[in-house]
């Protein structure tokens, strides 16, 4: 708890301001955008998950943190530091995202709230996990965000890949792309399972390192 | 005529910290040392001198040019080494110094090599800045300040991170540089540097000018008052501290040796030794009550 509090202090006020700003902008769009756009889908399945990743890449810095050497050398456990930091950022973003969902649901009622949360969580978790992985690898600032961003954009551009069998089970934006076979719940579960595997790997590799 | 003239310089940062409080002094040719504890305002003063930071009030003249109205003339004549400089890690040593040279309007690559030669970095000129050791980076920083042979050198803690040999060599560079009618103003925490090369110095304390003038005069403040006392335990030390300013204590196998400034001649029997600049400096900074 104490550590989460200090991580929150390290975050500072800027991310909160930016998130609040985004919520306001999104609310305005929700009010004024026409019926054409399925805002809930593009917003919560595509855009906000990457925003979560940007926040993890920029505010959840690990190797790129100026104090990394100091913390790695003196910290009790590297992996718990990584977890605290990443989880704090992710939770902060998710809090605002859910707030935003509630507002959008109130205004437009396109998709039930619980469903929106499900739709958001799996790509957000996936992109954030990839970013944490990059954070653990790259020593230069912004590189994690860059790598994850290119993957994100590519995922959007390669919607046509869905013509291959099985890809729909791991495609990040299944609902946005139509979900023709109605398998989105399986897709989301598969993606979360993949993340769990990656996290297990991270914990195994970095948990050992600091003994 | 003085090369640098500071008149009533004051600077208050936005957070309310008064970093400089009505500072005035002059600097003539040669090496000038700027001393003071952490946060005394040395860096702030040097930044004001190189036009990076604008003082709230007061005026500065460098080589006869007014800093406010003729900043360009001033900038053409100074070489500056900031306290914290990490440079572009992807450039090679040569490229970096060449870059700074070109920004200063020096397009002769020989000059770059000469500057690198002076700090003995020529053999590493192809190495990337990001792959240098801390002291090597400092040397590159000094080289970029030297390049183009400026009339005034402003160096903020130039010797931090240098190895002893390099420090000695660096003093050599400064002395040689100073011989050609140039002015060097450097801030440092290493009294040895000042003692060896600076004819004049200024001491800042909490943003105020505490002393400005010849180093020898500062020593005169305490000459004849430095004494060395041998004692058995720390309790005696507390007694001494009540009566004199303690400069240093060294613990030996039996008891400890205390070096003091015996201002009021409370220890007439103690062994008297000749004063050093360090004694004078520590005395200045430590003697809070009688400053």
């Amino acid at each position, binding site marked *: 708890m104490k550590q989460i509090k200090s991580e929150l202090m390290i975050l500072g006020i*800027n*991310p909160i301001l*930016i998130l609040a*700003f*985004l919520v306001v902008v999104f609310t305005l769009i929700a009010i004024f955008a026409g019926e054409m756009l399925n805002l809930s889908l*593009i917003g919560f399945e*595509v*855009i906000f998950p*990457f*925003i979560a990743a*940007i*926040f993890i890449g*920029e*505010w959840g810095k690990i190797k790129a943190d100026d104090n990394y050497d100091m913390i790695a050398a003196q910290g009790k456990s590297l992996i718990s530091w990584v977890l605290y930091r990443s989880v704090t950022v992710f939770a902060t973003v998710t809090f605002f995202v859910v707030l935003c969902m509630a507002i959008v649901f109130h205004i437009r009622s396109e998709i039930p709230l619980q469903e929106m949360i499900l739709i958001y969580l799996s790509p957000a978790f996936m992109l954030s996990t990839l970013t944490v992985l990059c954070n653990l690898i790259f020593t*230069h*600032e*912004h*590189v994690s*965000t*860059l790598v994850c*961003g*290119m993957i*994100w*954009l*590519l995922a*959007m*551009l*390669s919607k046509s890949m869905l013509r291959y069998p099985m890809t729909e089970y791991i495609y990040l934006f299944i609902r946005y792309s139509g979900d023709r076979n109605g398998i989105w719940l399986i897709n989301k579960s598969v993606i979360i399972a993949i993340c769990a595997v990656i996290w297990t790997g991270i914990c195994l590799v970095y948990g050992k390192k600091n003994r | 005529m003085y090369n640098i003239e500071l008149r009533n310089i004051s600077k208050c940062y936005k957070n309310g910290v008064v970093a400089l409080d009505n500072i005035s002094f002059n600097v003539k040719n040669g090496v000038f040392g700027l001393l003071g504890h952490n946060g005394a305002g040395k860096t702030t003063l040097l*930044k004001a001198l*190189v*036009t*990076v*930071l*604008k003082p709230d009030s007061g005026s500065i003249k460098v080589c006869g040019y007014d800093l*406010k109205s003729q*900043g*360009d003339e001033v*900038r*053409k004549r*100074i070489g*500056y080494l*900031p306290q*914290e*400089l*990490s*440079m*572009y*890690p*992807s*450039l090679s040593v040569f*490229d970096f110094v060449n*870059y*700074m040279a*070109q*920004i*200063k*309007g020096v*397009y002769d690559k020989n000059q770059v090599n000469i500057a690198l030669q002076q700090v003995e970095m020529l053999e590493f000129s192809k190495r990337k800045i990001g792959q240098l050791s801390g002291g090597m980076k400092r040397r590159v920083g000094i080289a*970029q300040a030297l390049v183009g042979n400026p009339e005034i050198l*402003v160096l903020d803690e130039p010797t931090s991170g240098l190895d002893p040999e390099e420090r000695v060599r660096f003093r050599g560079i400064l002395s040689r540089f100073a011989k050609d009618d140039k002015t060097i103003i450097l801030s440092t925490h290493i009294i040895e540097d000042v003692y060896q090369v600076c004819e004049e110095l200024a001491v800042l304390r909490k943003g105020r000018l505490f002393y400005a003038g010849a180093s020898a005069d500062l020593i005169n403040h305490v000459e004849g008052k430095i004494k060395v006392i041998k004692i058995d335990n720390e309790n005696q030390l507390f007694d001494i501290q009540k009566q004199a300013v303690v400069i240093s204590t060294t613990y030996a196998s039996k008891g400890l040796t205390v070096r003091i400034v015996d201002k009021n001649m409370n220890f007439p029997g103690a062994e008297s030794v000749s004063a050093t600049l360090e004694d004078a400096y520590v005395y200045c900074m430590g003697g809070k009550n009688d400053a």
Partner: protein
Amino acid sequence: MRKLLSVIYYEYVMQLKRIATWGVLAASVVITLLDGFPSEKNLARIEFLLQPSYFIYRSLSFGALIATFGLMFLLSNRMAIDHKTGMKQLIMASPITKLQYIFGKLLGGFIYTYTVFSLFLALNTLVFYVSVPIDIALTDCLVPFSKALIINVLPVSIFISFISVALPAIVDVRLFYVLASVLFILNAASPDSADKMPFYLITSGDLKKLIWQHPKFPYINTDGIQANLLFLIGCGLISAVPLFLRRKLWRND
């Protein structure tokens, strides 16, 4: 003038020396070719793929978006890096003007972007030319390529380099990323159509249709092209203005 050239030159060199630059270039070329390499399968799937101009047209809407997205990140720290490394003080203490410094940064970034973007198209076109299964005259590749260098690469480079160098010096770089990401995802989400495209498309707007046109819709949408061009160049130039106005950026003489 010479000082300006020095800043531009070193800005350019530093950027090209970054491994990430080549990573972005390689990734975007590979991605483009995965989509549009003239293999039997792709030729069967994509109708006009045998035409070099169509291949370039397609690269512009696919891999080019990824390349520019990556370049945006790589350009976004160009002002901040001077602050972080302490170089800003050093540069401000040197006899160089604010205009020289800012133009150096902007133009250095622009030339860099132009170079990488051109390389991206050149590599793709080269691979296409070498591996396309029918005989194609070299000029058939060079003409649309050269056209793209002027019609597309130039305005896109102005847009990407100017906003990514200038805006992060004015707003928090993370907010800049968020805003840019929204713009890019809207780009990626816009379906390719023969109709007038939204003006805010970066690499795949109406300008791209000057390279290749669908034979069924052989008309040129002048309005769309103008809007697209205006958006790219206008946004680029306007985003640079606050840099010059912002006094905190430079010593105040």
